[in-house]
């Protein structure tokens, strides 16, 4: 599917490129130290073995060996540290981009808040493994085998040939195995994946099963599902461990072959003991990074998948807003506007024509799914028409500076969002500079029978949906009174909310000369309007 390094990571997260360079440098230094280490070990052992005496520089040799290990320790620490720094930097970049992308699509509900949280936190954490385990090994694998292989070549070319012959076989075999088993793996993986969700499905459905007295009886289903799941998973594993088997086999067998060949040539005096030991110590080091790449391959898959999910989300972001100033004439016109939500067949808006005069109170009614909320979202600049256009004072809405445009609007959503803090915090969103007296007045006018000090928890916890609606209305009133908004935009509340206070609020707004667009079913609210139009009844 994806390669070992997502090119988008390189292009858009600059830290990746710097890190790759750094890890190659670390890899080269590590290789040099490994060669020195093998040389010192071979020198020491062979001298003692052949001469039955310690070499003159014995202490220097031991000290040098210790220094080599200390250097390798330092390098591995360095590798870990820079790997983390790169991962952290890339994660921060992606986090910022994901959140910005989310803010550019206020209407996008395709990604739930739970999956947003996962994507931004634990999802991106998969990049830690990618950067700290997989990429360093990739850096080592790209450098160590060549230097080490070169050192072996200079010492004993016959052994170098064995290494040079088997080493490239590893990626070839892994690719071959991956290629031949791809269809089988994908198929059984899908089965295993479906069965894995079976248990989660039943556990999450337990309250429902209990309501129908089926929870205990479903135990057989759980047991059966488990058996199938294990069978399916094991079938995946039989195949997917094969490539690791090929890797280990090739790596250790070729070390064995090098050792045995060198051993026999030693008997005939074709090679010296020191060279033989040098080759023996170095040969496994040539294979180690390649083996580790295989071991950490799943970190790569997880990391690439996390980056892919992030980029897919980010790339779905809308183009930036226009720059034209908002005209003084606020007549809004929908001209033959059509919009179809991605992934659906029938358009939510189909050739809609609609005019909203400045200062007018317009009620929009229509059947469920008739596109009323969609029209409001378009007016807010949250969505753009597929065809046709929305204009303000003759200017295309898409060309306007969307922030400036929204300053003219005071919006109350179907289910308004609440931020953590107090009611006053939430009302102040309408105009951050307002005084507590103004906030209290706005709350009163919105029909709230609680004060601004009331605490609002996660997702509006502590307020009923009716109370949340009133807070949002107070927020909108504040924006009209102090923020200069000229149009109240009221989306229809969900079922179960009393909207008589809304009719009162609409009256108050109208008295101040500000217009309103209201999606509603309620006669009290419609009665407060200048005009009622129907959406979605006829195309």
């Amino acid at each position, binding site marked *: 599917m994806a390669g070992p390094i997502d090119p988008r990571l390189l292009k858009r997260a600059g830290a990746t490129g710097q890190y790759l360079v750094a890890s190659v440098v670390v890899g080269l230094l590590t290789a040099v130290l490994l060669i020195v280490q093998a040389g010192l070990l071979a020198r020491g052992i062979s001298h003692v073995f052949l001469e039955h005496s310690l070499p003159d520089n014995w202490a220097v040799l031991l000290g040098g060996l210790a220094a080599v290990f200390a250097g390798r320790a*330092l390098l591995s620490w360095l590798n870990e540290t820079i790997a983390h720094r790169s991962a952290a930097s890339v994660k921060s970049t992606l986090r910022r981009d994901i959140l910005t992308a989310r803010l550019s699509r206020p209407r996008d509900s395709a990604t739930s808040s739970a999956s947003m949280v996962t994507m931004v936190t634990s999802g991106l954490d998969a990049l830690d493994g990618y950067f700290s385990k997989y990429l360093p090994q990739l850096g080592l694998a790209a450098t160590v085998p060549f230097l080490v292989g070169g050192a072996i070549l200079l010492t004993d070319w016959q052994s170098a040939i064995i290494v040079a012959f088997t080493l490239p076989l590893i990626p070839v075999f892994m690719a071959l195995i991956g290629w031949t088993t791809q269809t089988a793996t994908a198929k059984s993986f899908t089965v295993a994946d479906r069965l894995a969700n079976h248990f989660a499905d039943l556990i999450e459905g337990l309250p429902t099963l209990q309501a129908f007295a089926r929870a205990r009886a479903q135990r057989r289903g759980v047991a059966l599902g488990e058996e199938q799941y294990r069978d399916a998973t094991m079938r995946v594993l039989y195949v997917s461990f094969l490539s690791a088997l090929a890797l280990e086999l090739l790596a250790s067998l070729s070390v064995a072959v090098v050792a045995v060949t060198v051993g026999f040539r030693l*008997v005939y005096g074709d090679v010296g003991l020191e060279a033989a030991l040098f080759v023996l110590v170095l040969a496994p080091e040539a294979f180690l990074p390649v083996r580790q790449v295989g071991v950490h391959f799943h970190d790569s898959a997880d990391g690439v998948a996390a980056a892919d999910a992030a980029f897919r989300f980010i790339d779905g972001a809308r183009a930036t807003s226009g720059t034209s100033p908002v005209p003084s004439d606020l007549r809004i016109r929908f001209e033959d506007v059509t919009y179809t939500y991605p992934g659906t067949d029938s358009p939510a808006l189909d050739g809609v024509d609609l005019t909203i005069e400045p200062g007018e109170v317009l009620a929009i009614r229509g059947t469920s799914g008739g596109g009323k909320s969609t029209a409001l979202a378009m007016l807010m600049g949250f969505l753009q028409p597929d065809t046709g256009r929305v204009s303000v004072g003759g200017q295309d809405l898409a060309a306007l500076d969307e922030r400036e445009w929204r300053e003219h609007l005071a919006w109350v959503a179907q289910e308004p969002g609440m931020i953590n803090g107090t009611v006053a915090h939430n009302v102040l969103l309408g105009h951050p500079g307002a005084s507590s007296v103004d906030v209290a007045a706005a709350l009163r006018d919105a029909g709230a029978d609680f004060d601004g000090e009331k605490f609002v928890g996660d997702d509006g916890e502590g307020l009923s949906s009716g109370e949340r609606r009133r807070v949002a209305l107070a927020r909108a009133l504040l924006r009209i009174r102090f923020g200069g908004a000229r149009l109240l935009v009221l989306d229809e509340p969900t079922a179960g909310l009393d909207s008589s206070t809304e009719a009162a609020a609409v009256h108050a707004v109208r008295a101040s000369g500000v217009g309103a667009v209201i999606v509603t079913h309620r006669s009290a609210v419609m009665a407060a309007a200048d005009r009622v139009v129907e959406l979605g009844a006829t195309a």
Partner: protein
Amino acid sequence: MMSRRTDPRDPTLRLVTELLSAVPHGKRRFSLAVLLASMASGASVALLGLAAWLISRAAEMPPVLFLQSAAVGVRFFGISRGVFRYVERLVGHDVALRMQSALRIRVYDKLAATTLIGRRRGDLLTRVVADVSAIQDLVVRVIIPALAASLVIVGTTAMLARFAPAAALVLLVTAVLAGVVLPLLAQRASRAADLAALPTRGALADGVRELSRTTGDLVAYGAQDRVLVDLLAIDDTLRRQEARAAWVRGIATAAQVVAAGVAVVAALAIGGPAVVSGDLHPRLLAVIVLTPLALHEVFGAFAAAAQTWTRSRAALARIADVLDADPVGTGDVTSSEDPAPGLEFDGVSVGWPGSVVIQQGLDFRVDPGERVALVGPSGVGKTTVAATAMGLIPPLAGTLRRANRVGYLAQDAHIFTTTVAENVRIGNRDATDEQVAAALHGAGLHLSPDRCIGEAGTTLSGGERRRLALARVLADERELLILDEPTEHLDTATARALMHDVWRAGEGRAVLVITHDPELVAQCDRVVRLS
């Protein structure tokens, strides 16, 4: 709510041993996996050790025949490492999967037997699913490798101790250091850093959730930049805290390399003079110096294993809490011992067993053909009243009589990933195809019974989900219907259309509606107010 039985042993290890006994031949399979893993690691140590001996022996230029058996051994270890590893992974994953299955079934049994409806359960159910899989990680990535490595350490040290006891001792000490002490120390230190980062991670998650839920409002009111700056500040803090944890892990990795170095240098420093003094056969010098190199390579993955160890222990401790908790209520809806035509509450006090009374002295009845609304502010225990009415938990006081066959329509009814028909049959296992079709028709749902839900994007709208849940209720004869916030989160038109069909379906039956929708309340015959 949850009480834990006292057991002196570590809950994780207790759980692991219990599960091993629950799996057929569990201990045998597990031992086989450990044995194979140690043979795989042992093979790579033996490969280098024996190769070192072979080369040293060859340097003495003996007749080639003398080298043959060693050469066969080297080749054997060269092949066997990969093969042992492959078989070990299969056996290990198999036993881990079996243990996971056993644990899943236990958890399911436990949760099925405790009443979940009306209980504040937060994300208990989602968390349980994730937590249970920790057993696999624990077995495959921690227990088996750790036991296998111990065997290899002991075996290798014992072999070397025969020729060079001092070098073997150093090897043992450095191996324990690199394989056990360092990973655990690093884990503890980085855990402290991770714990410090925990509130920051929580704050980040909360901030993202808030941003995601309020995007429309934030953008509409131009507050997006402020929120973004706040979140990026949290991200920055998190970054600094995570850097500390990474620093610790880096030190630990470096220390492992140092430990390997100590073992190798010590072996050479001890072995060299020993050869000169004649205490050690020269042939063995390469063996005792090179073996530690191969042995220490085994510990590379142990830092990660220590991390998995802490993480999976925490997950399994939570699972142990769930398993040890006393069951609450009956779990499944039970049949009434003293059936009434509808529902009668006579001085009933409602609350969770062993906990405080939530509502006291409830007196009301719902007769067949009647619609009664149960209203009250949120958090007052309306769903707990429903759970009591269904007989899921006993009333704490008073008497309660109800019809035998109760249908419960919940706002959060779960739709299972299967066909529409199977989802309907949750309401009546023995429903014929005709009954399923009739139930779907009654619920006003025009979906093919064979359509699969949840796969390949075939999802249902909020209204359709509510209707499918209604079809379940209609799949069987019910005398009493309890509707729990049936219109919550639906838009007005959808809610009205749904209730039209619900009322029609409930004709002639006793219907209790839990709601705070004024429109719904107005449609009921009577209202019971909770305070």
